[in-house]
C-alpha cells in the first residue's frame, strides 16, 4: 500500500505543524515539557478555545462573530454581580449563559430577519455589549467572590484543571452536534450552498440564528471561567479576543467561506496559538515581536490551506 503524503498533509497538516513546534520547544526550553507548563498552556488556551468552538459553528455557515469578546465581558460582569449579590452558583451560571444566549439570539435574528451581513451586525453588537458592560460596572471591576464561584476557574478534578475539562467537553459535544444532528449537518450545508439548503425545504434562517446563539453561549462559558479564575470581572475583559478566537478557527482549517472545517482542527488551532504564546514567553521573545509572529502564522496557515485545496 502506497502512503499518500498529500492526503496525510491535507488531513493532518496543522497537527503535524503543531507537533513539530512542540518538539522544537522541548529542545529549546527545558521548562516547556513539564506538567506545570503544559497544564498552564492548555488552561490558558481554554478561555479562547471554548469561544473558538462556538465561532467554528458560525464560520462553518459562512458567517463571522466579532462580538465574542464583548459578550464575554457582559456575561462575566453580570455573573460577577449576581455572584456578589448572593445568587448562588447555579443561578449565576444560568444568568451568564442566558446573557450569552440573548446576545447571540439578537445577532442571529438581525443577520437572518434583517438581512444584514454578519460582519456589520456583530461589529455593532461588539460595541453595544461593551458599552452595556461599562454602564453596568460603571467602569470598575467587580471582584472578590466566595469559594464556590472560584471553583469554576481554579479547581482541579483528578489533577486536571476544571477549565481544561470544560474545554474538552465542549469540543466533544460540538463534535457530536456537528456530525450526529440535523443542526450540525445543516450548519455545513448552509455554508456550502444556502440556496440549495432553502430549496431543499429547510428553514435555514432558524439554523443560522442558532449558530450565533451557540457562539453567545460559548462566550458566556469562557466568561465564567475567566471571571472566576481572575476573581474579578473587568469591564474591559475580552477586548481583542475575537482575533485569537477567529485565528484559532482559521488555523484549524475551517474555511472562512463556510462549509468546510471541524472542531478538531479548531482544538489544534487553539492549542497551537497557546503553545506559540507560551513558547515565545519562555524564550524571552519580546511581546511586541510575538504579535508579528502570530500574524505571520495566521496568514501562513490559510495560505497553506489554500495551496492544499488547489492541489486537491
Amino acid at each position, binding site marked *: 500500500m502506497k502512503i499518500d503524503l498529500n492526503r496525510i498533509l491535507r488531513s493532518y497538516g496543522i497537527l503535524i505543524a503543531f507537533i513539530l513546534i512542540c518538539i522544537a520547544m522541548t529542545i529549546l526550553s527545558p521548562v516547556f515539557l513539564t506538567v506545570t507548563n503544559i497544564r498552564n498552556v492548555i488552561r490558558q488556551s481554554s478561555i479562547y478555545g471554548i469561544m473558538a468552538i462556538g465561532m467554528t459553528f458560525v464560520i462553518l455557515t459562512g458567517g463571522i462573530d466579532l462580538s465574542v469578546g464583548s459578550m464575554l465581558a457582559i456575561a462575566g460582569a453580570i455573573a460577577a454581580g449576581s455572584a456578589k449579590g448572593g445568587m448562588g452558583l447555579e443561578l449565576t451560571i444560568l444568568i451568564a449563559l442566558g446573557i450569552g444566549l440573548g446576545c447571540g439570539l439578537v445577532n442571529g435574528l438581525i443577520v437572518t430577519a434583517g438581512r444584514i451581513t454578519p460582519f456589520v451586525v456583530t461589529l455593532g453588537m461588539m460595541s453595544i455589549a461593551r458599552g452595556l458592560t461599562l454602564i453596568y460596572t460603571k467602569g470598575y471591576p467587580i471582584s472578590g467572590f466566595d469559594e464556590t464561584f472560584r471553583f469554576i476557574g481554579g479547581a482541579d478534578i483528578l489533577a486536571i484543571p476544571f477549565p481544561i475539562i470544560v474545554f474538552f467537553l465542549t469540543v466533544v459535544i460540538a463534535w457530536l452536534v456537528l456530525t450526529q444532528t440535523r443542526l450540525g*449537518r445543516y450548519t*455545513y450545508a448552509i455554508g456550502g*450552498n444556502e440556496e440549495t439548503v432553502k430549496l431543499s*425545504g429547510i428553514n435555514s434562517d432558524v439554523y443560522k440564528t442558532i449558530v450565533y446563539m451557540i457562539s453567545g453561549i460559548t462566550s458566556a462559558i469562557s466568561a465564567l471561567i475567566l471571571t472566576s479564575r481572575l476573581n474579578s470581572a473587568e469591564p474591559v475583559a475580552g477586548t481583542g479576543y475575537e482575533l485569537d478566537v477567529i485565528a484559532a478557527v482559521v488555523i484549524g482549517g475551517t474555511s472562512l467561506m463556510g462549509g468546510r472545517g471541524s472542531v478538531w482542527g479548531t482544538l489544534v488551532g487553539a492549542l497551537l496559538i497557546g503553545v506559540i504564546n507560551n513558547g515565545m514567553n519562555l524564550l524571552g521573545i519580546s511581546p511586541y515581536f510575538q504579535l508579528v509572529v502570530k500574524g505571520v502564522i495566521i496568514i501562513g496557515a490559510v495560505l497553506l490551506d489554500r495551496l492544499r485545496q488547489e492541489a486537491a
Partner: protein
Amino acid sequence: MNTLLRMVGISKSFPGVTALSKVDFDLEPGEVHALVGENGAGKSTLMKILAGVYRADEGEIWLKDRRITAADPRAMIDAGVSVIYQELNLVPYLSVAENIFLGREPRRAGGLIDWQAMRAEVVKLLAPFKLSLDPRARVGAIGPAYQQVVEIAKALSLKADIIVMDEPTAPLTGSEVDRLFEIIRGLKAGGVSIAYISHRLEELHEVADRVTVLRDGQRMITAPLSSLTVDDIIRNMVGRQLTEQYIRAGAPSAEEVLRVEGLTRQGVCTDVTFHLHRGEILGFAGLVGAGRTEIMQLIYGYRRKDAGKVFVNGREVKIRRTRDAVKSGIALIPEERKKQGLILGLSVLDNSALTIFDLHTRAGFIRWRDIRKLVRQMVSNLGIKTPSLGQTVRNLSGGNQQKVVLSKWFVRRCEVYIFDEPTRGIDVGAKVEIYKLMESLAAGGAGIIMVSSDLLEVMNVPNRIVVVYDGRIVKEFNRGDASEEEVISYALGLGAKSS
C-alpha cells in the same frame, strides 16, 4: 462584393448535442437581419460564435472580405462586432459615462481621469438619440430602456459596425419599444448593421429587413420580411424531426393530487390556476422568460405570492416557505441543478440525505444507519457512479451530479415532483433516462410537473400541456390535441391561429 459579414457553413457541437450544422448568416451594411427560432434552435450559439465566445467546429467567418481566423472576444470587438446581451453588461454603481468608457477612460497628464473629455464624448455619442440622459446618472437608476441605450452608445464608441441585439425589447414597455426602433433606424441610416434576435415575431416587420429562421441548429430560410407573414415564419420554426425517443406518460388516475388556484404575484404571474392528477405528467410549455420557473417557485414557497391557494390531496396547504411545501409533499428539482440543487463541497451522502434528516432523527440524533441504507439503495437504483457515499460531490462527473439531485428528492417520496427544465443541457441518452424516471414516479402514484422549453419534448412526454405566456396560462391541451404550430403560437402570445 460589399457584404459586411458572411458566416458560411458554421457548425458547432457540444458534448451530446449538435447546436449548429452548416448555418449561413450574412449582413449587408446598414441592414437589420432578424434571427428567430424556438428555444435551443441555435440562435445564441451562432451569435456567440460571431462574438468570439465560442469557436466554430467548421465554417468560415468573413468580415469586410477579410477572413477571421483567430476569433476571440477581444479580437471581434476590435473588428467592430459588439454584442448586447439580454443580461446587460453594465456596472450599476457607475455612471453612464463611466460605463461607456469602462477600461478606456480618457486620461489627463498625470494619469487622472479626464472627466470633462469623457462627458463631452458621451454627449456627442448620445446626441443622435435625442434623449435627456445625464452622463453622470448612475446606470442602476436609469431603467432598462436607457440601460440599453448605454450599451448601444458603448458599442458605437467602440466603433462597432455590427451590433448583435439579443431580445432587446423583452424588458421594454410599448413606448420604449417604439423609441428603441427609432434608435435602430437611426443606426441603420448611419451604416451600422444589426443582427436582431427576437421572439416577438409581430414586431419584426417594423424593424427588420430580412429574417433567418433556425430550427434544430439548421437554417430553414433566409428571406426579406416583406415576402413572409408571421404564419410563414412559424411554419419554418416548427416541424423538428422526432429524433428522440419519447417515453409517453401512461394514463393518470382520476384522483387529484395538486390544485393551484389564482396564484398571483405582481410583475411575475397572474391568476395561475391548474390541477394535477396522481400518475399524471403535466407539461408547462412556453418561452424562456414566460414566468414558468417563477410560478413553480411561488408554489414551492421560495418566493412570496401576493395571492393564490395551493391544495394537496384536496386539502388547502399554507405554504409560506419551502419547508411548508416539502412537508406537504411537494418537491422542486430546480433548473440550475449545480447551483441550486447541490452542495459541491459535501459528500454524496450529505447531499442525498439533506431532505430526509428530519424524518430519521431520534432523540435529536440522526439515525445514520437508516439514512445510509436509503441513500445506498437510491444510489444503486439511479446508477450513480461514485467510489463511496463519502465522496465529495464536486469530484463526480456532471451526469452523476445531476443524479445526486434526483436522489435527494426520490429518497423522500413526495406526492408532487416539479421538474424545472429536467433535460436542459444533457444528451439524448440521459434525456430518455429522465423520462423513464418521471414515468416511474408517475406510475408510483405521484403527480409530476414538467417545465420544459423543448417544444417537442413538452408536447410528447406529458399527458397534458399548459402554455404560459407573460405569466399567465393562456391555453391547455391534452397530448395529441394540438399541433406544434398551435402551441408555439400560444407561447409567442399570438393566441389561436386562424388556420
